[in-house]
């Protein structure tokens, strides 16, 4: 009896693996193999299009450590992430709270704030190049109108990265808003009513009820946000090409430059692997700090 049972279970397990195989094959081809391959490349001198490769050992990694530009690019990426994520999440949270109510025409407002997400990033980049334009750009026109000096947004090495941060926050916040709005809908309304009867103010309700109760979603949004912003490429490519003076050069753009402009695939792979390590490290740090404070709703 038990033997028959064991055989049936084995059969079931085999069937499960058979069903899983296609997606495993897909993952292996497009995710695992490239990771292994890029690690392999990082240990060699590889030139794009040249079939001959030469063993270099850890030399590429030593080069990364000595590469002043790499450290600058890393710092830019960190700055970009550590500003874009808090700004866009804060904006998204405030928008979501403001839009989480029953009012006439609310769907229109929600769509309006979500709209930036639907614009292709290249098109959005082009629009912001126009908005930031030094002479005729609407942003400078607005600054001028209130008596402030014009700024060379994308041409000033002290300002260009911040300009991309503003643009990214605009683009991300609609997306985060939608996710947070869904989370807000799950907070039972009688909790707010109980708090109102207790005399707890709106800000206190936000801090002590809303934020703790949507913390799993906030955590999710932070992690997704970090993954997105560490991989930022399109805005930089369209708006500044990493300039001026590498002030907006970020890791993925630097990988692209090394791999496809300088055709140094070995070094590009090394930077990519370093990026992976940093990203895992950062996510780990977030998991250990924020993740510990997440409160999950629901029954036991």
């Amino acid at each position, binding site marked *: 009896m038990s033997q028959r049972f064991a055989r049936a279970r084995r059969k079931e397990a085999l069937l499960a693996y058979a069903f899983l195989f296609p997606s495993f094959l897909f993952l292996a081809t497009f995710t695992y193999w490239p990771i292994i391959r890029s690690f392999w490349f990082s240990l060699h001198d590889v030139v794009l299009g040249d079939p001959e490769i030469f063993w270099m050992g850890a030399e590429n990694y030593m080069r990364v450590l000595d590469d002043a530009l790499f450290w600058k690019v890393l710092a830019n990426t960190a700055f970009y992430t550590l500003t874009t994520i808090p700004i866009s999440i804060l904006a998204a949270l405030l928008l979501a709270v403001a839009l989480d109510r029953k009012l006439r025409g609310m769907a229109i407002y929600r769509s309006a704030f979500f709209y930036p997400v639907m614009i292709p990033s290249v098109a959005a980049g082009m629009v912001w190049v126009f908005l930031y334009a030094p002479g005729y750009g609407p942003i400078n026109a607005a600054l001028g109108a209130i008596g402030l000096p014009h700024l060379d947004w994308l041409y000033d090495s002290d300002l260009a990265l911040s300009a991309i941060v503003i643009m990214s926050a605009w683009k991300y916040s609609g997306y985060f808003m939608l996710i947070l709005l869904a989370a807000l809908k799950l907070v039972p309304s009688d909790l707010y*009513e109980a708090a109102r009867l207790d005399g707890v103010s709106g800000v206190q309700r936000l801090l002590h009820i809303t934020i703790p109760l949507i913390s799993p979603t906030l955590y999710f949004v932070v992690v997704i946000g970090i993954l997105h912003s560490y991989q930022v490429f399109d805005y930089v490519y369209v708006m500044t090409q990493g300039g001026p003076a590498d002030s907006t050069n970020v890791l993925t753009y630097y990988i692209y430059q090394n791999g496809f402009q300088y055709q140094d695939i070995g070094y590009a792979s090394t930077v990519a692997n370093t990026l992976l390590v940093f990203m895992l490290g950062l996510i780990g740090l977030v998991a250990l700090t924020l993740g510990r404070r997440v409160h999950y709703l629901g029954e*036991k």
Partner: protein
Amino acid sequence: MATVTLRDICKSYGKSETVTNVNLTVEDREFMVLVGPSGCGKSTTLRMIAGLEEITSGQLLIDGVDVTDLPPQRRDIAMVFQSYALYPHMTAYHNMAFGLLKTSKLTKTQVDARIREAAEILNITDLLGRRPKELSGGERQRVAIGRALVRQPKVFLFDEPLSNLDAKLRNHMRGELKRLHRDLGLSIIYVTHDQIEAMTLGTRVAMMSKGRLQQVDRPMDIYLNPANTFVAGFIGSPEMALIACRSDQRGTIRHNAFRSAVELKADNLPNDVLFGVRPEEVSFSRTAGMAQGKVEQSELIGAEALVQVRLGDELMMVRCQVSDAPQPGSDVGLDFDLSRARLFHAGTGQAINLVRE
């Protein structure tokens, strides 16, 4: 503690009116139960008292002060919700402390003293460190009541607080609420759809239907003298039989199944009346009886039996001793307790005043 006065309170959403002209005074230390079927406007009325719903028209006074336009936190009330509405990320202790710490001028020690005292009363001292998900339904409800108690408000509002509990726990908590009300002298307004809760808990019961108050009275008065057929049908289980009869001006009530006319005294009786009889106000006659019926079925419910009897076109329930229950299909004579019988206007459903001797 305080009195609560509702004057011509109305609530409408757009064109549909859900609460119409409610006039009600809840006395100090009274346990007022708002009862009625779902959708009758009782919860809306309670939420208007709480300040969670805007009052469309009318006036709400607490201790004589007009609070109609005041926000909930300035009405000095506390509410216990059907879903408990405990903050899931806080312990029982913090659930009770949160509002007090954020809004009152009490020190931490004073807040702590209040929580310990309420916990003692509610027997939840051991549970204070737990979060809601680590508590059973009954324990959560106690914490929710505790959260209201520590506020020491003028009025307590309960919105179907026992509906989510199982039957046994519900009975138990009903007793606890009664004890709390008696021992602490609280003013309570309590919403339920459960007639047993209404009858057992209320010092007075306000019966609602279709957004209107039907009757406000002490539980026994509501039971014995319902103001209309709706109240007669809602309170009492099994419900009161309403037998359609013909009447003349002098109070002679006739029905095909009656052996002779029933004589009741009243002024200006309409031609069509409903003769209202509760199951315990009918008995099986050893002689021919006042009316002739046929037993449809008989149910044993422990010490008693409920017998369904057909009276002409109508069915009525008779409550009797198990040993007295006749066999289904048998013809029986029935006697009515005329000292408790009542008549309703067949058209309007309103009770008719009888002259009792």
